[in-house]
């Protein structure tokens, strides 16, 4: 299964903004320590700087990336996520899987009403799920879903055409926001949200693209989870502007540039971070169809040995991340710390592997390049040059990169990660994505067998063990050349605590608490 979200594009934009901000933020000072209202007592208002504007109030047209905080203010999800990325109750209080895992039965919360007075029940849930399945952006979460049925007022059945162990995760990630069915029918979501969420949208005091104001509803079923009386979200793409707003006290929480960590500490702010994307080289041509050399395991391994991943993380990534060879998140049970030294930088070994593969003099390859990746280009140039691999860079703008990169045998990549292990398997390994144009699982029987083992395993320990086995095999095959897992960082003043969630570029409001 695949999913709709801005993942890599957003991750790349973030990377670019971080790189740009690193250039300009040096001109800023520690300031006066604007504390954004942290001067004693509980903070009643949350003023958060989000990286991007809300894409749409219609969850079917919304992006997962940075839309979470906006949509979580006004909508309740059918399924939510907990801090570990595990499915948690939302408007569905519980759910059961059939033994063949092809039917998911969700039991719905009672007594919930939408802002327009409509009642939330199974009929409303089905109308929403159908709308999401047909949505331009949301449909990818429901690719393996064949239908929805209201069994009674409080029970919904979701029928799957194929087992999908990541379905609940994607629903919780931002693909199950429930809106008033009347708003769907009347196409009213263009005028603003009509949901049942913990906050009411204060349209009069909001200015789209500038700031969105939400006021707390006392009557919400989960009101205790949302401590702030008023939430104002500022979409601020320029990271210097965002940091200045934090310094001036206009914001009390922000999506941050890790280069500013020392200044955040000077100001006494809380700093929270978690892995969000992997950075490295994506081998799109593992079978060697375009460049024969890349079909050789030893060549891919040689490239992995050649790069100084730790140095790149320190120099380009501001040290905000984890040097690794894997793309299951560093907190995942699938992740194996011992494998991080598998490709410890060793240029002699890299050259020797190239020679063994019959490419002692290297080979030629074309790679795409866009301004966002220029921060990593010098390291790539030097490393490939040392190996004797002659790279011809083809310059292009970012949208073209996304469109054209899949046609190149390998390319530099910043790809968003998932907090769910099975979602990582589908998004990064088995499904065709722009960043994984040729999954090529079928061409590697041993990989295919391990993928099937994981997909058919009982969720839990057995599935984790199967994924670990697969992870080991993929690292050994140098399926990708992962340099590091980059963190997303959030600053907040004392009195506000942020819990980042891998998979969400910006956490939903339930993960922003007093503390």
């Amino acid at each position, binding site marked *: 299964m695949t999913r709709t979200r*801005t*993942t890599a*594009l957003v991750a790349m934009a973030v990377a670019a903004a971080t790189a740009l901000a690193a250039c*300009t933020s040096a001109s800023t000072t520690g300031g006066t320590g604007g504390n954004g209202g942290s001067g004693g007592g509980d903070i009643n208002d949350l003023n958060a700087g989000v990286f991007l504007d809300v894409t749409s109030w219609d969850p079917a*047209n919304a992006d997962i990336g940075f839309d979470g905080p906006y949509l979580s203010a006004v909508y309740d999800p059918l399924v939510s996520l907990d801090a570990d990325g595990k499915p948690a109750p939302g408007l569905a209080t519980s759910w059961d899987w059939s033994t063949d895992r092809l039917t998911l039965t969700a039991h719905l919360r009672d007594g919930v009403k939408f802002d327009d007075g409509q009642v939330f029940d199974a009929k409303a849930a089905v109308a929403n799920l159908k709308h999401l399945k047909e949505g*331009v952006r949301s*449909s*990818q979460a429901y690719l393996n879903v064949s239908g929805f049925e209201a069994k009674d007022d409080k029970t919904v059945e979701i029928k799957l055409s194929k087992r999908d162990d990541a379905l609940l995760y994607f629903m919780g990630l931002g693909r199950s926001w429930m809106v008033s069915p009347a708003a769907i029918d009347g196409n009213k979501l263009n005028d603003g949200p009509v949901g049942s969420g913990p906050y009411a949208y204060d349209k009069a005091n909001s200015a789209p693209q500038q700031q969105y104001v939400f006021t707390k509803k006392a009557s919400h079923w989960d009101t205790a989870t949302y401590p702030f009386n008023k939430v104002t979200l500022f*979409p601020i793409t320029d990271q210097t502007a965002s940091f200045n707003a934090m*310094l001036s006290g206009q914001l009390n929480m922000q999506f941050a540039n890790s280069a500013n960590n020392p200044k955040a500490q000077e100001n006494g702010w809380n700093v929270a971070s978690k892995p969000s994307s992997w950075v490295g080289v994506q081998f799109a041509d593992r079978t060697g169809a375009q460049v024969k050399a890349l079909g050789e395991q030893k060549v891919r391994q040689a490239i992995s040995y050649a790069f100084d991943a730790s140095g790149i993380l320190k120099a380009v990534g501001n040290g905000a991340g984890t040097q690794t060879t894997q793309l299951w998140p560093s907190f995942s049970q699938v992740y194996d710390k011992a494998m991080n030294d598998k490709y410890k930088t060793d240029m002699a070994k890299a050259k020797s592997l190239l020679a063994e593969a019959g490419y002692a003099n290297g080979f030629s390859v074309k790679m795409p390049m866009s301004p966002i990746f220029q921060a990593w280009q010098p390291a790539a140039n030097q490393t490939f040059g040392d190996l004797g691999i002659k790279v011809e860079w083809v310059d292009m703008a970012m949208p073209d990169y996304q469109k054209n990169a899949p046609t190149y045998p390998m390319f530099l990549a910043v790809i968003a990660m998932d907090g769910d292990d099975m979602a990582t398997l589908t998004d990064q390994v088995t499904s065709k994505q722009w960043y994984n144009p040729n999954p090529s699982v079928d061409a590697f029987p041993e990989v295919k067998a391990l993928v099937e083992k994981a997909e058919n395993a009982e969720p839990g320990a057995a599935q984790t063990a199967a994924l670990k086995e697969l992870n080991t095999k993929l690292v050994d095959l140098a399926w990708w050349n992962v340099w590091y897992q980059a963190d997303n960082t959030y600053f907040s003043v004392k009195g506000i605590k942020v819990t980042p969630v891998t998979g969400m570029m910006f956490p939903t409001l339930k993960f922003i608490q007093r503390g």
Partner: protein
Amino acid sequence: MLSFIGKRLLSGIFLLLVVTSGTFFLAHVAIGDPTQGLLGNSATPAQSAALRTKIGYDDPLLVQFWNWLSHAVTGDFGKSWRSFQPVNDQLGRSIPITLSIVVFSLIISVVFGAVIGIVCGLRPGGWLDRVLKVASVVLFALPGFWISIQLVMLFAVNLKWFPSVGYVSPSVSFVGWIETITLPSISLALGAIVMIAEQLRNGFIEVANQDFVRTLRARGLPRRRVTTHVLRNASPAALTVLALMFVGLLGGAVIVELVFNMYGIGRYTQQSSQIGDIPSLLGVTAVTVAFVVVVNFLLDLVLGWVNPKVRER
């Protein structure tokens, strides 16, 4: 005068048509299939196809153009391909922001530029004149974003006199509106002040040395009245610069809007072109060209009023 106005209006409409048509076709050639940029990284071919149908991208280019043009002439610029919201709504939100900072910065520029220009013109070589010379070089050399950041650091972060980001509509709070547009406007205006001052100062000195001024002085006219005559004859050049500056400030607003996080015309253009949202791009192009046409038209009217010979051209 009516024929003069008619000619100017016709040429303005022609320019509007040429620029927007050119933008339409160039944007289609440059962007190609926009669905990837619009949908995000993991769009499936089926999703792209659905979006293409939804936005009418599968229609022949000339049909798309006619669909756009026939609506645009009625003032309907269609819906954004990104948010599916009417482009007019977005323009209605962005135009007041950019106009607020551009007009406010023009007012600042004209007031300070005129005063400095006249004073320097009256005393060429004086200390203020020398300061103006240095300032014009320095302010032109300094990048706009650097000036903006310094203003933010001083007045927003350290002194906390103004907000560092955002925009408040005057309908919500007039004071808030003034507070949010002051720093961006000053940032835009600094370069414009010295430019207007320099133009006016040079024009002033040139006219002041002409024979008719010497005659006015010889006839014993008071200095204030002589200055008025000189100013009126020196003003056409400054007015032309002012009109050009309006266009320049519209362009310069992109950086200021970015630094102060204001979603005006500049950022709307930048984002639309980045993601391939052609209806938004066309809407913003049409409005910007319309502004330029109107400003030039007004300039021609004023110049024609100041100098009747212009009307005969």
